[in-house]
């Protein structure tokens, strides 16, 4: 039933560092920094000012349009509302909260009984999910309510992405093992919104424990199928996962809804359950802190806004970190300032040692074609890069550079260490710039 997508690579999984470490509750930090932009779309406007008292789960930022509100993850006093470093590499307006460690809960966060949940309409559910600040927690941080409301009537297959194909990351694996019932409950809510009787959970075969736990909590009447897929990077990429589960190809430039699919990350499903049943907005998430130089890699349940260095310190390291990544080594963003806060889309912090260095001076393409065999989008990175080197925007477009999903399979496999992904990001920007110029002229 499972299809195998084209290309892909097999990087060293390195899941053993953290996959058997039970999720620990990270002690609440004294200070949290909550950025107003933790999703794709318009940033929030702060709803609090310096000196205000906030409670756990209180909405502290919101805006009109494509926006998802953010909430306080601890109770205490607002110390500052200012621009702070963000995992994206820029600075973002953030609310800094000094924790009073009283854990005063916001009055709005009330649990619902099964009857109350059953009585909710689809609009109510989507509204609760929106107000709960839920975004795609696999890293892309697309607003979940938009995916839900936009997919009604179009989506016939819903897939939970528990693929977690990135090396080192084990947060979804731990979630499936420890709280499968909440994940399944969240998926059922999504199925109810779409009016579907069937749902899929896509997971790689390198997580047998998680598969076992999920299957143990599923009854035949649930209509939920666990699709065990071969471990291959990027199995968890949205388009590749849809292909692997359904055999459908999301059209170039299109959304999954175009082929009747909607994909939700495993952690997102659990967050949907939390907000619908417990009334708790998204203020905590599981973060895998792993890497080859950490003394004790961990899976931690972390309040949003906890700084990276607090988490890394909790694990200890044996040599000075060479790179600290928000995410895994294939697609993660390298950080230069470890005061950056953990945000909704951070599923892992990967700390790598010097031996991971592979960049070479003046890399030269050998034309070996290994990148073509690795590209899951069936592109030709070798020719895309050549077009980039000659600054030829038309040739870049003709070589479908805009279809690149930046998964890194080509650059991983390139024997000459040509910085392909970096090049394609530059190339995409050049195309966008050229398009903007055209528009300005017209």
């Amino acid at each position, binding site marked *: 039933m499972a299809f195998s997508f084209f290309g892909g690579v097999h*990087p060293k999984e390195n899941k053993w560092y953290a996959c058997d470490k039970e999720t620990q509750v990270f002690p609440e930090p004294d200070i949290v920094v909550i950025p107003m932009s933790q999703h794709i779309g318009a940033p929030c406007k702060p709803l609090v000012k310096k000196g205000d008292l906030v409670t756990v789960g209180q909405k502290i930022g919101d805006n009109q349009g494509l926006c998802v509100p953010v909430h306080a993850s601890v109770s205490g006093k607002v110390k500052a509302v200012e621009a702070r470093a963000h995992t994206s590499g820029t600075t973002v307006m953030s609310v800094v909260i000094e924790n009073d460690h009283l854990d005063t809960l916001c009055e709005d966060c009330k649990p619902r009984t099964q009857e109350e949940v059953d009585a909710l309409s689809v609009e109510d559910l989507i509204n609760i999910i929106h107000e709960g600040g839920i975004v795609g927690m696999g890293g892309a941080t697309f607003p979940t309510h938009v995916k839900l409301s936009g997919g009604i009537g179009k989506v016939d297959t819903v897939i939970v992405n528990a693929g977690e194909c990135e090396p080192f990351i084990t947060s979804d694996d731990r979630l499936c093992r420890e709280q499968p019932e909440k994940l399944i409950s969240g998926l059922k809510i999504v199925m109810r919104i779409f009016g579907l009787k069937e749902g899929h959970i896509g997971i790689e075969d390198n997580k047998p424990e998680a598969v076992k736990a999920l299957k143990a909590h599923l009854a035949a009447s649930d209509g939920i199928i666990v699709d065990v897929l071969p471990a291959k990077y990027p199995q968890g990429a949205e388009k590749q996962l849809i292909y692997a589960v359904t055999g459908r190809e999301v059209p170039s*430039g299109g959304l999954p809804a175009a082929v009747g699919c909607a994909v939700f990350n495993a952690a997102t499903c659990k967050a949907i359950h939390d907000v619908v049943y417990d009334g708790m907005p998204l203020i905590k998430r599981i973060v895998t802190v792993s890497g080859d130089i950490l003394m004790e890699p961990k899976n931690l349940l972390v309040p949003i806004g906890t700084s990276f260095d607090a988490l890394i310190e909790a694990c200890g390291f044996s040599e000075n970190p060479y790179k600290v990544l928000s995410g895994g*080594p294939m697609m993660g963003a390298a950080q230069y300032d470890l005061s950056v806060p953990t945000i909704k889309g951070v599923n892992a912090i990967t700390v790598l040692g010097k031996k*991971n260095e592979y960049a070479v001076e003046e890399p030269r393409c050998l*034309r070996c074609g290994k990148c073509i065999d690795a590209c899951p989008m069936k592109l030709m990175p070798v020719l895309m890069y050549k077009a980039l080197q000659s600054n030829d925007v038309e040739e870049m477009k003709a070589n479908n550079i805009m279809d690149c999903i930046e998964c890194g399979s080509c650059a991983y496999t390139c024997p000459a260490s040509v910085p392909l992904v970096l090049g394609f990001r530059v190339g995409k920007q050049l195309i966008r710039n050229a398009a903007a110029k055209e528009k300005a002229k017209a």
Partner: protein
Amino acid sequence: MAQMKYFYELTISSSPHAHSPVTTQTIMRDVLIALAPALIGSIYFFGFRALMVTLVSVAACVFFEWAYCRVTKMHCKIYDLSACVTGVLLAFVCPVTIPYWTIILGALFAIIVVKMLFGGLGRNIVNPALAGRAFMFSWPVLMSTWVKVGFNNAAGLVSTADAVTAATPLGNMHQGLMPDCSILDMFLGNVGGCIGETSALLLLIGFAYLLLRKVITPRIPLAFIGTVAVLSFLFPQGNDRIAWMAAQLCGGGLMLGAIFMATDYVTSPVTKLGQIVYGIGCGALTILIRYFGGYNEGVSYAILVMNACVVLLDRIGRPVKFGAPKKEAAKK
């Protein structure tokens, strides 16, 4: 705000941050390992001069690349071992009696003119070793003096005056005759010819190693050798089709060319279909030159001609991108 307790310099770079253990250097090292059986065989067949010629050629290639980078202040990458591969291949396509000065000139041409002037590894249009060989044919007598095979008949390390000359199987076949040695000898390499080309068996062992290590795919060699096999089977000279075909396959530089030269990444197409057409083109041109050309071996010129077609061959058989509209897919 937690203060940073440790001092560390973090490196910022684009993802991915992981890399496959396969690098240019490991690939070139694998090619050298794959060439080793043929090199050892050549010492057995032609004596220590075969090794000496190879070492001189490798040293010259590495030196010229280093010197070029030194003079032009280009970043020197001799550690990627590609110059070593060129050096070994250049020696392999010369007779054992080749004077050292000739092979040094060949190396000069291969590295400086063909490789470095075009921008170094990855930018050259044609295979440097084969272009070097073509250049060395400026001294045709030196390039086509064949000694009788055998360790004891070997040409001396310094002087080649004592060497006993003999015809090669390909020389016989060029006149439309079956070679005067057995097919088995040709397969094992116990015949006259260039240093590294005589033993099909040892080259096939190298082929198996390259396939096992996934350095190359079998597409180009199989298309190349297959085309030669089919054409020589269809148009035999003499009575025995099978024997003629076997002699064509084991004779001359076909195995060396198909396995190690035509598969050079830089000068072969990147698309699957392109590679197959390229292999077929190499095979057809080889037979054409062997049958109708003035010189009895066609492999190297066939590959050089096909090298020049790579830009065109890269345009055929491009993969249809994931999620391409069905109409577009059908059109392609």
